[in-house]
């Protein structure tokens, strides 16, 4: 079956498709990508998932699945919200 592995970056992404014998897991696909020079520099210890859902490495894959390697948020959403709210209240007062 055909499995795509994607590591998205800012305006550029590494994406490779691999033919893997079923049954296969998220970890199997990542193992293939790890050996691929195209993925050099990618943090394989990061959270991974399939089509927008965090998945464990032992999760089974289906034909056509996209295994994704995620990156952490730049800023904690709660502190970002406080910062936006503070900026908004400042602009209202001035």
């Amino acid at each position: 079956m055909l499995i795509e592995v994607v590591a998205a970056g800012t305006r550029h992404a590494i994406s490779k498709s691999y033919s893997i014998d079923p049954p296969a897991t998220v970890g199997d696909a990542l193992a293939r990508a790890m050996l691929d020079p195209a993925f050099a520099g990618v943090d394989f210890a990061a959270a991974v998932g399939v089509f927008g859902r965090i998945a464990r490495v032992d999760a089974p894959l289906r034909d056509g699945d996209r295994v994704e390697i995620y990156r952490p948020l730049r800023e904690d959403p709660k502190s970002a919200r406080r910062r936006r709210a503070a900026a908004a209240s400042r602009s209202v007062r001035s």
Partner: protein
Amino acid sequence: MSGARADALAADIDARLPQTQCTRCGYAGCAPYAAAIAAGEAGIDRCPPGGAATIAALAQLLGRTPLPLNPACGTEGPPRVAVIDEARCIGCAKCLAPCPVDAIVGAPKHLHAVLEERCTGCELCLPPCPVDCIEMQPAPPSHRNDPGLNRTRYAAHRARAARLAQERTQAIAAKKALAGRTAATR
């Protein structure tokens, strides 16, 4: 026109649409718009991403005179792609499902990114973003909008969405059955 002939015509029309699935024509996607044209319910002037080239192709297919693009649907412009401002993305994942071609990679509480070469510029990811961190920017000169690839990706996206919906329904039914059994044994 018979049903089969209308379907064949709709397929011919759909083959000439850019497959961005942007819904700016007022229909739920390129195929529904093609069906509406085939049924004589919609004009050939409603596709902003396709612009003059698509209108000309449709006019030729249907033996009609080309029209200018209907301004109520939008304007034709240089191709654009969605770009996520990573400093502002809160990882809400709301933009993922609306993308017809799965061009956004991300998961809840993790940074999202647009796979630029896959983005069709449909703008369907913009309204769901609660922090307005997605912006349309000019596509690089190398960017190609391939209707065939768009169609394949949209079909895969729809098939997966249908499967997930079915799995959810089954999970709820299983939970209800379990709750019913538990209540009965009390």
